C-alpha cells in the first residue's frame, strides 16, 4: 500500500518535471533566480567595495573598470551596493510572501472547510483587503506601523494574504465534496487529517504558482515603498532606495537610476516567468 503511494507521488513529480523541462523561459528564469540567491548569500564576500565605503574624490562617476556600475553621490561603488541589496530585496520578498501564504492558506482552509460564521468573517475580511490596490494598502499599513524594512515585510504580507486565502478556499470547496474525501470522512478520519493530508495537497500546485508570482510583485512593492521613503532607511543599499536617491541626478548621472531599476526589473521578471512556467507544468488541464 505504502509503496504504491510512493510510486504515485513519484510519477506525478516525474510528470511535472517532464512538463517543466519544456518551459525554456521558465528554466532560464530559474537559473537567474538561483544566481540571484547565490549573490544574496555571498554578496558581502564578493562585493569589491564596502557598501558604505565613501570616496568624496570620485563622486557620480560613470561605469568604469574600477566601478562597473559607476559611483553614487558619495562616491560609493554602485555595483557593490546593488549586489548587497539583492539580499534585502529577496529576503523581503520571500519573507513577506511566506508569511502571507501561510496565514492565507490556514484561513482559506478554515473558510472553505467550515461553512458558517467563520467563512463569512474571513471572506469578508479578504474582500475588504481586496478592495484596496496593493500599494495603497501597504502604504496604509506603513502609516500605522511606521517606516522600516520589518514593517514593509508586514505590509506586503498583509496585502498578499487575501489572494492565498481565496485561492485555497476555492480549491477546498472543489475537493471537499470529492468521493475520496467523503470516503475518508466516512471512515471516521479527523478534520485535521482530512484537511492536511487530502485537501491541502490538492491545493498545492495553485499555491506554488501564486507563491512564485507573488514574490515578484512583493519585491516591487517593497522597492516602491522604499522609493517613497517608507521602507528601508538610508544608507541601506535597498534597490528602491538607491533608485530614489539617484533620481536627483537623472540628468547628469543616469547610471544611478538605470542599474537599480535594471536589477528590480530582472528579478521581478524572473519570478514571474518562473511562476508562468510552473503553472503550465502543474496544471493538469492544460494540454501538452
Amino acid at each position, binding site marked *: 500500500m505504502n509503496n504504491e503511494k510512493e510510486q504515485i507521488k513519484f510519477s506525478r513529480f516525474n510528470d511535472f518535471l517532464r512538463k517543466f523541462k519544456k518551459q525554456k523561459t521558465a528554466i532560464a528564469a530559474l537559473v537567474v533566480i538561483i544566481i540571484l540567491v547565490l549573490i544574496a548569500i555571498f554578496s558581502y564576500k564578493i562585493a569589491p567595495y564596502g557598501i558604505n565605503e565613501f570616496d*568624496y574624490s570620485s*563622486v557620480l562617476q560613470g561605469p568604469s573598470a574600477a566601478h562597473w556600475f559607476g559611483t553614487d*553621490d558619495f562616491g560609493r561603488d554602485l555595483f557593490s551596493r546593488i549586489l548587497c541589496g539583492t539580499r534585502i530585496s529577496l529576503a523581503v520578498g520571500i519573507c513577506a510572501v511566506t508569511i502571507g501564504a501561510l496565514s492565507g492558506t490556514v484561513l482559506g482552509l478554515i473558510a472553505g472547510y467550515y461553512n458558517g460564521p467563520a467563512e463569512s468573517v474571513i471572506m469578508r475580511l479578504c474582500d475588504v483587503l481586496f478592495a484596496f490596490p496593493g500599494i495603497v494598502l501597504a502604504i496604509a499599513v506603513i502609516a500605522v506601523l511606521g517606516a522600516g524594512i520589518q514593517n514593509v515585510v508586514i505590509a506586503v504580507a498583509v496585502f498578499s494574504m487575501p489572494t492565498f486565502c481565496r485561492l485555497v478556499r476555492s480549491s477546498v470547496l472543489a475537493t471537499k465534496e470529492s468521493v475520496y474525501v467523503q470516503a475518508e470522512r466516512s471512515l471516521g478520519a479527523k478534520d485535521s487529517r482530512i484537511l492536511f493530508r487530502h485537501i491541502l495537497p490538492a491545493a498545492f500546485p495553485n499555491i506554488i504558482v501564486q507563491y512564485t508570482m507573488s514574490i515578484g510583485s512583493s519585491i*516591487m512593492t517593497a522597492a516602491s515603498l522604499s522609493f517613497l521613503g517608507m521602507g528601508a532607511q538610508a544608507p541601506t543599499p535597498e534597490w528602491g532606495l538607491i533608485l*530614489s*536617491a539617484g533620481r536627483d541626478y537623472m540628468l547628469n548621472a543616469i547610471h544611478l537610476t538605470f542599474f537599480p531599476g535594471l536589477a*528590480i526589473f530582472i528579478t521581478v*521578471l524572473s519570478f514571474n516567468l518562473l511562476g*508562468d512556467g510552473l503553472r503550465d507544468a502543474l496544471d493538469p488541464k492544460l494540454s501538452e
Partner: protein
Amino acid sequence: MKARRILAVMLAAMMLILSACGGSSAPASSEGSNAPAAPASSGSAPAAPAAAVTAQEYDAVAAVSLDFTTMDPVDTSDTLSGGIQRLIMDGMFGFDDNLGQIPLLATGYTANEDATQYVITLRQGVSFSDGTPWDANAAKANLDKLADKTRGLKRTSLLSSIIESVEVTGDYEVTVNLATPFSAFIANLCHPACVMMSPKVLEAGDDVCASAPVGTGQYLFVEWEHGDHLKLELNPNWWGYEAGIVDKDAGFKTINFKVVTENATRVSMLQAGDADFIWPVPTESYDNVAADPNLTAHSEAGIVVRWLYMNTQKAPLNDVRVRKALALAVNKEAFLQVIYNGHGSVATSILGSAVTGYKGNDPVPFDVEQAKALLAEAGYPNGFTITQYYSNNTTNEKSAQFMQQQFQQIGVTLNLVGEESAMTNERIQNSTKPGAEADVDVYLTGWSPSTGDADWALRPLLCSEMAPPVNYNIAYFNNKEYDDLVHGALSVSDQAKKNEMYARAQDIVWEEMPIIPLMEQDNTWAEKSNLVDIKIYPDGAINCRNAKIAQ
C-alpha cells in the same frame, strides 16, 4: 496568455523605473511631453514672451522646496514664510535689495541720545486691504503684540525684552520707550517679523493671523493649502507704486507658490515651463539649469550659515571634549562639495561674514586622529550611538547620511530618523522637555539674521533663555559669560565696543563647540530668461517686488 503576462510584468517594471523620472509627485507628466516644447515656444504656457503680456497680466508660478510654517509674522522662524509675508505686509522699515534700510510704512524716526526712546513718524494715506486705515493706533497694536511675551509666539523674543511701552503721540506718530538703550532698534524693525498686520486681524486672534494675514502690501493673500501651494494676488492700489518703492509696471497678477520638496521635480518644472522661478536651485542641477538658454540661474554669497547643533545638556554630548571630537571628525570642505556642489564657503563663525558684528575664527580642522584621541580621553574609546532627526527632503537626507559617514570614522554611530517636517518641528523646536531629556542629540540647521545684525543670531541661537520651545537654542547651550556678553551688547551703542563683545561671544562658541560649524551658503535661484528683477535677499528670502516681464 503567457505573452500577455510577460508584457504586463515588463510594463509594471518599466513603470517603476520611469517613476524615477518625475519623483513621486504629479508633475511627472510634464517632463515627457512638454519638455521639448521649451517655454519660449510653447503655446500652452502663458509664460511665453508673447510681447503683449505684461507682468501685471500674468499668473506666475514659483516652486519652493519646503512648506510654509505660518502666516503670522510674529510666530515665523523660517526665512521662506517670512519672505512671503513681506509681500503681503509691509514693515515700518524694510530693506532694499542689499539689506540697506529703507523706510516703508514709516517716513522717518528720531531717537534720543542714549537710544532709549524712538519717535517714529508714519506714512499717511495708506490703508490695509480690509479697509482699516494705517495710523498710529495700528502701529501700536502691532508693536504691542511684538512686545507681548505671554503669547508664546516665536518672534516675540526679538523685541519683547526691549520695548517697554508704546504711546500714540499723534495720528501718525508713535513713541516707543525702550527698557534698555538699544541702538539696533530700527534694524530690528526691518526684520520680517515686524511687518504690520491689520488691527482687525490682530483682534481676531493668533489663529486668524496664522492663516489669513491682511496687510498693506503689494500682494493680497488668497489661499494657502498646506503642503501644496500658497497663492497671492496683486494689490494694484498698493501705496508703494505711488511712493516709488518699485516701478509702476512691476509685480505679477497672481503668484502661486507651489511646495515641491523633490529637488529634481522642482528643476524639471522650471525647465518644462510649469514654474516661472524657483529657489533654491538644487546645487546638483545648477550647471544644467545655468546651461539652459531659456533660463537664468544665479548663485550669490548670502548670510545663511549651516551647522550641526549638539545638545550640550545630554550625555555624552554634554562633554566639551566629545563635542570637539565630533567637530574635528567632520570634513567641512567635503560637506560643501558633496552636498552643496561647492556653492558656498567653509564656516568661520555662526554668523555670515556679511553680518554686522561678525568675527571670523579659523575653521575647525578635519582631524580624525585628534578626534579619536579626544573621544578616548572623554571615556568613549569605542564611540557611542546618537540619533539625528531630520525633516524629509533630499538635501537634508543627504546631509544626514554625510554626517553618519563622518562620525563613523571615529566609531560614533549616528541613527538617522527622517520625518515629516511638522513632526520634526514638534519634536525639536517645540519640545517642552528640559535639554537633558529632549529627543534631540544632534540637529542640522541653518540661520540667517534677517536684521543683518549679530544680535539676531547670537541671542536666539545660543542664549540660555532661548532653548526650545521659546526659540532656537537647540543646543540647550547654557553659558553665563556668553549670555552676559550678548545681552550686554544690546545696551551698548558704540558699535566698536559692541563688535568686541560679539567677537568674544563668537570665540566662546569656538571654545565650547555647541555646534559643528559647517558652511556659509550661497543663495541660488533661477527664473525664465524673460523675467527680470527676481532676486533673493542675502538672508535667503524671496525678493520679487520689482519683478517684470521683459518686453
